């Protein structure tokens, strides 16, 4: 009996630690001016890369050769070569870049510039600026519709999601959402656009064809005051069934049924949880905890936090790719 128990335990232990496909996560540490590199087999930081000042938005290029990181206080985006894991190039991003998004082909990058109310359009191959779009006060969240036709930008003080036609680069619609919209994310089939409002405490679900808010997701956590619930990062699974919302100083990630828009569960993570990213196989979800200086690893199938990894100071953004 004892022997069997032990055996089962060993098998479980083995299964739990079986190396998945090898992925690698890059985490921007806003205060340390570094990027932590995490190996998802070992769940450990394998390298810390020095970058420019105030690194926030971070994303792999489509070909996986570079990781782009917006260093706001240096008014540029730096390119980390994923082979050498060193900064090798910069992009002309415009002042104070924060979040950005690239088109499907990986040719065009759209950058939110908080300081001058613009979105900058960059040719990634030529590393050249192609133009600007004037938007609302303090642009931040960025998303592209899956068909590539519309770029979404959210402006934090104007409280809107701006729909920008990617052909003409003109704003075609503006949708008012709750206070301080931080992040925008489309469902994979393009049927819904989700926008988080940090101060408003809600997620607005927008019909991208009609440009209207169809429903608002709210959060109610017993024992927590309303003001502490501040949604920021959104990750929707590829099948469009489940979504994860980082709730900032509520120190929790909300798991939402993406069809019914109801919260299924709250997962306790670290302090001031900001952004999140799936591993490409969607087995794991990694979230950055700003104040506790760590990254929590969530088992997506089990909806459980399985691990915490110490990174640099004030971890902000995260991107995950193949090793």
């Amino acid at each position, binding site marked *: 009996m004892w022997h069997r128990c032990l055996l089962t335990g060993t098998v479980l232990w083995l299964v739990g630690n079986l190396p998945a496909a090898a992925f690698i996560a890059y985490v921007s540490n806003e205060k340390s001016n570094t990027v932590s590199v995490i190996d998802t087999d070992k769940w450990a930081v394998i390298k810390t890369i020095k970058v420019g000042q105030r690194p926030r938005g971070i994303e792999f290029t489509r070909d996986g050769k570079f990781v782009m990181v917006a260093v706001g206080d240096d008014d540029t985006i730096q390119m980390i070569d994923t082979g050498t894991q060193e900064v090798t190039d910069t992009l002309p991003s415009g002042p104070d870049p924060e979040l950005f998004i690239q088109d499907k082909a990986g040719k065009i990058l759209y950058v939110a510039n908080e300081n001058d109310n613009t979105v900058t359009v960059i040719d990634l191959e030529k590393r050249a600026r192609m133009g600007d779009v004037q938007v609302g006060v303090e642009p931040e969240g960025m998303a592209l519709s899956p068909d590539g036709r519309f770029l979404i930008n959210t402006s934090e*003080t104007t409280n809107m999601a701006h729909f920008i036609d990617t052909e003409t680069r003109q704003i075609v619609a503006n949708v008012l959402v709750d206070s301080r919209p931080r992040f925008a994310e489309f469902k994979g089939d393009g049927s819904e656009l989700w926008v988080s409002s940090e*101060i408003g405490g809600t997620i607005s679900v927008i019909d991208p064809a*009609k440009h*209207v808010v169809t429903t608002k997701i709210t959060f109610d956590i017993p024992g927590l005051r309303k003001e502490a619930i501040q949604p920021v990062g959104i990750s929707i699974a590829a099948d469009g069934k489940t979504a994860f919302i980082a709730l900032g*100083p509520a120190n929790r990630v909300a798991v939402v049924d993406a069809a019914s828009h109801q919260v299924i569960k709250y997962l306790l993570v670290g302090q001031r949880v900001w952004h999140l990213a799936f591993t490409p196989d969607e087995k794991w979800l990694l979230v950055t905890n700003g104040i506790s200086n760590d990254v929590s690893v969530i088992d997506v199938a089990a909806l459980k936090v399985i691990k915490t990894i110490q990174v640099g100071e004030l971890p902000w953004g995260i991107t995950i790719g193949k090793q």
Partner: protein
Amino acid sequence: MIRLFVGVVVGLSALSISAVAADPIEIGIGYLRRAGVKPTLSLVEQPAADDGVAGARLAIEDNNTTGKFLNQHFTLEELRLKEGDDAATAAMTLADRNIAFIIADLPGDALLKAADAVRDRGMVLFNAGAIDDRLREEDCRANVIHVAPTRSMLADALAQYLVWKQWKRWLMVVGSHQEDKLYAEALRRAASRFGAKIVQERVFEDTGGARRTDSGVTLLQRQMPVFTQQAPAYDILVAADESEVFAAYLPYRTWDPRPLAGSAGLVPKSWDAAQDQWGAVQMQNRFLKLNSRHMTALDMQAWTAARMIGEAASRVNSADRRTLLDFLKGADFSVAAFKGQRLTLRPWNLQLRQPILLVDGRMVVSVSPQEGFLHQVSELDTLGVDQPETRCKLH
């Protein structure tokens, strides 16, 4: 059934904002203040001539950037009262000029006169400058929204931190002017609420004299240690000197080596140029770009007032005063002001709830309410006079 369907479609499309070419909705905001500024002890703290109104100007720009997408346009009209000018007449003048709301930076009595004069015209004032508790208590008005924090909110914010820091024994020095006494009263209340003890109180008499002299330092270096000697054991000296007579002279000159708080040292404020949390850097940069100087607490209070109007206008999509006011006073209203959480109005006296910064002139040392000071409605209501104690009856 078909009619019902049409109703739903119309209802939904009203939420969407399409680019419209019609004449924009115009919302005029007045700004009422006194001419001239009071001299401060510190030359670097001398307020700029546009202190306050510069914040309102930035908010008008912000509102108009948003207004571009909503077909709304905001304007600011400033009126300065010279010595002897009547606040009531000035408010009436603004009311005659198609102004919807007035942001006021006026002393308490002048504010009440202005508010009462335009009450029948349906005008609402935003108090951006006066911190007197009585304006939210026995002298409260249904047509005055208070954006400036109260003395008791400032005192409570400071007291919470000092108690958290275990600096519970205070030596209090109070100025001889009326507002100094009011601040001292708020500090006494805060001490007893949060468990600090005032071990002794001293009064610093204002005997007049120039604020700047060529040989000032030598004299002060002798005066201040003597003034603070033979005090009972204390942790921190708390100074109540709103009239700027002595507090700024105390740091590094006390008989016992002790830190300072209140009107010098660690100061509670609604805003500071050093505030950089919660996206505030964007705000500080925008302000600096427009006004070529740092942003003060008064600038922030005026910015917040004008933004509250802009926020309401964008939500109700109307310039109608009544509609805007109902929204501002309603449960759905909140405004984001770079303080890490939404700011709302206390419905019983129309005071804006807000976190208070504790600053030392270079850095933000802490932000109150402090962790652990709990409240059944909002932790922000641990600052200032709360609903059960209020003497305000809004009519």
